[in-house]
């Protein structure tokens, strides 16, 4: 499997992170994302076929990896698919705002900042409930592709320019994902040392 993306692509990072966490090996081809007007989504080449975008690629990799990355039971599966939509929809504001702030791409920064705030808030509310239920992850007791899909938009909050200070449960979530075996960061993702380690 060959992944076409760039080390600074937030969407590409979701795919790289999934591969790292699940022990899948991907070859890489660099796409110059800064050259064009918009960042192309990650593209995964599998034999003669290819798929584009985070959702289809994560679904495919979940199948390859096996385990609990995509729950088999309907309720968990539906919840994971909902969060994949959330990552591609609501959280896309964070990706666009990051590219305005980082690469000088055009866009309405104040409107996006409000959209990012409300997406982070919705995530925070859900994750706060999950913490009460005893899990730092979005669905169930362990990590799923929902967590991987949502992670870049919040882990890169520094580049997005919307601090996580007001979103404690999201901060706990970021922390929990960075502690998963096989975790890899990308530039802009700050991994703090574990105080309990």
């Amino acid at each position, binding site marked *: 499997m060959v992944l076409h993306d*760039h*080390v*600074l692509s937030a969407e590409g990072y979701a795919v790289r992170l999934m591969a790292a966490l699940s022990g899948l090996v991907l070859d890489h081809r*660099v*796409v*110059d994302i*800064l*050259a064009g007007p918009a960042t192309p989504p990650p593209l995964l080449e599998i034999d003669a076929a290819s798929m584009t975008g985070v959702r289809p690629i994560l679904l495919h990799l979940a199948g390859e990896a096996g385990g609990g990355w995509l729950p088999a039971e309907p309720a968990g599966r539906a919840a994971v698919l909902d969060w994949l939509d959330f990552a591609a929809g609501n959280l896309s504001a964070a990706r666009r705002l990051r590219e305005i*702030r*980082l*690469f*000088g791409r055009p866009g309405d920064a104040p409107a996006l900042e409000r959209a990012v705030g409300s997406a982070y808030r919705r995530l925070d509310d859900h994750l706060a409930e999950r913490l009460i239920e005893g899990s730092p992850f979005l669905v169930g007791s362990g990590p799923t592709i929902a967590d991987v899909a949502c992670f870049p938009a919040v882990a890169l909050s*520094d*580049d997005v320019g919307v601090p996580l200070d007001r979103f404690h449960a999201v901060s706990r979530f970021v922390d929990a994902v960075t502690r998963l075996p096989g975790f890899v960061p990308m*530039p*802009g993702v*700050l991994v703090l040392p574990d105080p309990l380690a």
Partner: protein
Amino acid sequence: MIAPIDPVARHAWYPLAVDDGQALRRRTTLLGEPVALDRETGGAPAATDGEGRRLPVVSRHGHLWTTLGEPGALFDIPEAREPGRRFVPCGRVTIRASGLRVVENFLDMAHFPFVHPGILGDEAEPEVKPYRVEIVASTDEVWATECVFHQPRAALSASGGVEAAYRYRVPSPFVAMLYKTCPARPDALDVVGIFLQPRHETLTDVFPFYYVFDEENGDAEIAEFQQMIFLQDKSIVENQIPPTLPLDVGAEIPTRADASSVAYRRWLKAKGLTFGVTPTRDRAA
């Protein structure tokens, strides 16, 4: 309060765009002033300030440069003319800090093992060995020479760890370059650098660039390597307090490894640069 632009900053050249020969339209700020850069397809680039006044534009070192003042000649990069060397521009990245902080970070070797582990440094070998620093009076440049650092992956063309030899050059307050051992050609030096556009005192657009010997990798791969390293530096630079650069002696405590930073700050102070500098405490108050 908006700081007035000091003469040193006003009369310097600044990059506004990578010069790829394409049509472009950019509305931005330089030293806090609005500037516009335009080029029609096939036409010459034109820059104007907020009042519509025409600004000088030159194309050098793969970028388009302008100035708000009356500058001297733009510094030369003689290595750029060496046969076989490739110029690779690495786009533009915005950093929320003074450009002077960005240059200082670029000159620093002590952070390699911690900010770029496994690439430019190794946490097991964090020592910065003594090196030479001088302010070259004839060219008015800061140089750090005889720098050596153990690097697991000094460049994209590297196949293993090397004792990388470095020389640093600051030809202008908002430009920093380094010459380092080229893994693919041990007799030659790669040139890596950053051209800075100070948009405001604490907001800077950075244009990283490469002049390298590398026949293996494409431009996108080479640029990605530099962009990755640069983005690793971003959060470190943005979290320095204050975001401007203090030039007062004793404002920050340097160690021996900071000799290049000490020389850079002394050089800036002697020039009288104030844009992006932390205001001196008013001791009379």
